[in-house]
């Protein structure tokens, strides 16, 4: 709204802003946060070091969730034909019940447990005497009721503490059933420092228990896996549409609208395309080591990024037919995108955005705001690591602190029978010399302007301060942050669950996002925050009768 815009021809000095963010903290907290708030210098091409993936200070209101959320909620949640059984008190299962918008399509086989919530609902007796019996009975009841292909067991906080051996129970039931794969995840909420640990734990177990289980050959040309795409708001459906149009065969998605069989067959792909680097790069690495499948970083958020990623995949396969088909698809899809942006740009150009979300999304969505002519003046991750900010080159010298030390790193060997390099060393060399980058990710920082603020694990207090000082036109984070920001009169867009919108991936998704941002930053409602008697409260004026 004109009104809100007028109010804010804001000038801000990043150092000044940073200082004010820290002002109110106790010294110890201030020191720690100082290392997680970085003034970007991208244009000088020197990316300063940021502290990330460290514990949140107790009492500081954080955006972060827990390991269970990362494992059950994010990675395993979207898989439709696995019965996800939560072993613990009722809450953890209840809160993860349909609250992420990862869409699933029952598909021809008609198996879809997405709308169900399964729990052992542990009672005090189970805490005192142990919950293994109840878990075993619950697995049996689930099997008898549904006869699913697979049952996944998730541990919540108390389980680890009371020492229930969920893995042994799972193994026993798996052997008992024969036709149902049962396995468990020790993803107690207290592990690690954020959802991130949960992603890793999920990656490990999926790779250990499912990947490679199905060697029945999958048909199709240009076989890839799409890693780190969770089909929030139907993103995955849009990407599938594009792949299908391009003739690219997606063997498995980790894990949007996925099935047990997709995971089991993932080793048959010839390329792994990684969307969310943070949550899934472990699987990418393991698939390469064990089966010889190379991986590349892609991004289907943003029309240009989508085109770029499609070309990158085509270039990998190097097949002229594919390259031409991809170009044809891009040529067919872009006009609608350009028409939309032309119509909307005048209303969005020059506005500013802030994003604090996920472990890759803040970076991905910058693409879309760029396309809208909006500047991202501050961004950061909720559970990213240094490599997500600074690029993978920092990985070798990452220090692992006490909080992350116990998150299992599984050692993977090349599979005796099934390891098969997808390209000869020569081919790989050729591609790399032509500038093609495998296993490569530069991170967020290089894409951010100089002097913008990059902030890790932003908390509620800092969010408010930032908005107050830098007055963005839109702020992006999660549901917990949405309304405190909007109370300030700044539209807030959820980028975890997209509020009610989506898809935002691919070409059609980009158009949806343009329209959504247009709606948000130009809604009349932001002009109503003050009543007439608040706008001019003086009572001197005498009323003008007819």
């Amino acid at each position, binding site marked *: 709204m004109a009104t809100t815009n007028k109010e804010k021809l804001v000038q801000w000095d990043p150092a000044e802003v940073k200082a004010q963010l820290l002002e*109110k*903290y*106790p010294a110890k*907290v201030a020191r720690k946060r100082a290392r997680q708030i970085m003034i970007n210098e991208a244009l000088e091409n020197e990316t300063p070091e940021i502290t990330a993936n460290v*514990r*949140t*200070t*107790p*009492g*500081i209101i*954080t*955006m*972060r*969730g*827990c*390991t269970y*959320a990362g494992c059950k909620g994010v990675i395993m949640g979207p898989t439709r034909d696995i019965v996800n059984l939560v072993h613990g*008190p*009722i*809450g953890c299962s209840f*809160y993860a*019940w349909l*609250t992420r918008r990862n869409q699933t399509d*029952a598909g021809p086989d008609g*198996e879809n*447990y997405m*709308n*169900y*919530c*399964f729990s*052992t*609902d542990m009672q005090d007796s*189970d805490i005192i005497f142990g919950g293994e019996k109840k878990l075993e*009975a*619950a697995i*049996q*009841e*689930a099997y*008898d009721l*549904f006869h699913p292909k697979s049952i996944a067991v998730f541990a919540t*906080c*108390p389980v*680890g*503490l009371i020492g229930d051996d969920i893995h042994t129970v799972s193994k026993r039931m798996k052997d008992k059933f024969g036709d149902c794969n049962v396995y468990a995840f020790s993803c*107690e*909420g*207290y592990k*690690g420092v954020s959802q991130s640990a949960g992603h890793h734990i999920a990656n490990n177990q999926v790779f250990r228990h499912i990947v490679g289980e199905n060697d029945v050959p999958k048909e199709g040309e240009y076989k890839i896996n799409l890693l780190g795409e969770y089909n929030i708001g139907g993103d995955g459906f849009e990407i599938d549409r594009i792949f299908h149009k391009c003739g690219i065969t997606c063997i498995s998605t980790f894990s949007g609208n996925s099935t047990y069989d997709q995971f089991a067959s993932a080793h048959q792909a010839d390329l792994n395309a990684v969307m969310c680097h943070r949550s899934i790069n472990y699987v990418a690495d393991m698939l390469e080591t064990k089966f010889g499948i190379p991986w590349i970083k892609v991004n289907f958020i943003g029309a240009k990024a989508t085109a770029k990623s499609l070309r990158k995949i085509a270039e990998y396969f190097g097949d002229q037919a594919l390259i031409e088909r991809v170009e044809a698809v891009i040529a067919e899809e872009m006009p609608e995108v350009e028409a939309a942006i032309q119509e909307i740009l005048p209303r969005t150009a020059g506005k500013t955005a802030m994003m604090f979300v996920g472990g890759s999304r803040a970076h991905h969505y910058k693409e879309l705001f760029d396309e809208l002519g909006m500047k991202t003046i501050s961004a950061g991750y909720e559970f990213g690591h240094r490599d997500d900010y600074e690029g993978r080159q920092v990985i070798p010298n990452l220090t692992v602190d*006490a909080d992350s030390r116990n998150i299992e790193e599984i050692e993977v060997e090349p599979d005796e029978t099934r390891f098969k390099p997808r390209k000869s060393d020569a081919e790989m060399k050729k591609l790399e010399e032509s500038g093609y980058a495998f296993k490569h990710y530069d991170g967020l920082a290089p894409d951010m302007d100089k002097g913008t603020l990059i902030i890790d694990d932003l908390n509620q207090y800092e969010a408010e301060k930032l908005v107050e000082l830098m007055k963005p036109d839109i702020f992006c984070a*999660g*549901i*917990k942050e949405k*309304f*405190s920001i909007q*109370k*300030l*009169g700044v539209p807030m867009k959820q980028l975890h669950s997209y509020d009610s919108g989506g898809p935002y991936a691919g070409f059609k998704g980009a158009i949806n996002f343009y329209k959504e941002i247009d709606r948000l930053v130009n809604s009349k*409602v932001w002009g*109503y*925050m003050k009543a007439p008697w608040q706008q001019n409260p003086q009572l001197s004026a005498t009323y003008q009768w007819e």
Partner: protein
Amino acid sequence: MLLRHTPKEISERSALTINPAKTCQPIGAMYAALGIHGCLPHSHGSQGCCAYHRSTLTRHYKEPISASTSSFTEGASVFGGQANMLQAISNIFSVYDPEVIAVHTTCLSETIGDDLKQIKTKAANEGKIPAGKDVIYASTPSYVGSHVTGFSNMVKSMAMVAEPTGKKNGLINIIPGWVEPADMEEIKRLVNLIGVGFILFPDTSGVLNGPLSGEYKMFPEGGVTMKELKSTGDSIGTLALGEWCSADAARWLDTKCKVPCSVLDMPFGLSATDRFIDALRTIAGVTIPEEITNERGQLVDMISDMHQYTYHKKVALVGDPDQLIAMTEFLVSMDMCPVHVVTGTPGNAFEKRIKELTRDMPFEVNVRAKGDMFLLHQWIKNEPVDLLIGNTYCKYIARDEDIPYVRWGFPILDRQGHQYFPTVGYKGGLRLLEKMLGVLLDRKDRDDQEQKFELVL
């Protein structure tokens, strides 16, 4: 079908809960704590709990929900959460400066056995609690009871703030139980009309139904003050609305502070509201103002005007015990037939009470405490209903079975209105009846054959 794997045949389950009709204690404690003015709820556990509770409450109210956590790490889980809690207390007071921190535990801190009393003492001794500020706490193990239990436990901790001076304050304590901000507002309106002095706790009105005005207040105007809570020990009596939500706090004040109490049903519907109003009248020895009698008469009027549409309609209910008991009585009083009633919260007294209330109904009632929505759905498949009442999760059943459906309870994640319009009291009864009639008559208008389509209903 959304719930395509739910079979009609019912098999008893001993270990597996499917589609729960409850959640865990801490969220109830958090909601109750938000009803204290200037209070920051604090979750003593790993940070996921707090994130989940805040998210759920935020979705239900479309309002900011502030709460902090002890952010347990693996270390804390092994060595105990005292260090985290102490650190949290000092950070909270220096960064957010609340009047009071209301700590609740989690399955994690309960399992490792953290002692909040001792931690608070240590914090106090170390000067981590500024003068005039306070920390209260409740033990809310997730593996006992339900969100209702957690609410009740935090409300009891609020009562324990009482500091009897021996001098009566002439006020009545009213414990509304887990109702919406709009309901608390309505209760206050009614009691003010009757002209009785009172302390309502908790009171989330003015906290969770706030305006959009361009400013964000972490601690809004509303909520019962610590000063008022201290004074509850001097009140002439306590009216606790709801055995499950409010009785413990009331009985504690009775035993410990000699403040007599009475536990009533939540004032949903005609008769329960009658009893609440008449109790206030008798206690205070006042006459009921015409305005209230008139509101009552309006509800009776609408019940009679639309009786042909409510008469013998079969209803399925799922929710929390106190609410379901009042709703069941309301439905029966309108000659409706609640045939399936499920709560996830344990308590045999619940099943007994529902059976009493439905004794004279022309249909046999199915009632289950510690049940789940999967069972409710199976019951419905075996005996279909004309109306379904429950929280947002019911809509999966409503769509699959094509049942008229009224959202009522917690959580409601897909509609607005519950923050603003009460369902307690006579006006609340009118609203509930309006909503039920709305969906029943919408269905009639949808399904009537053309020649039977009615202009006037």
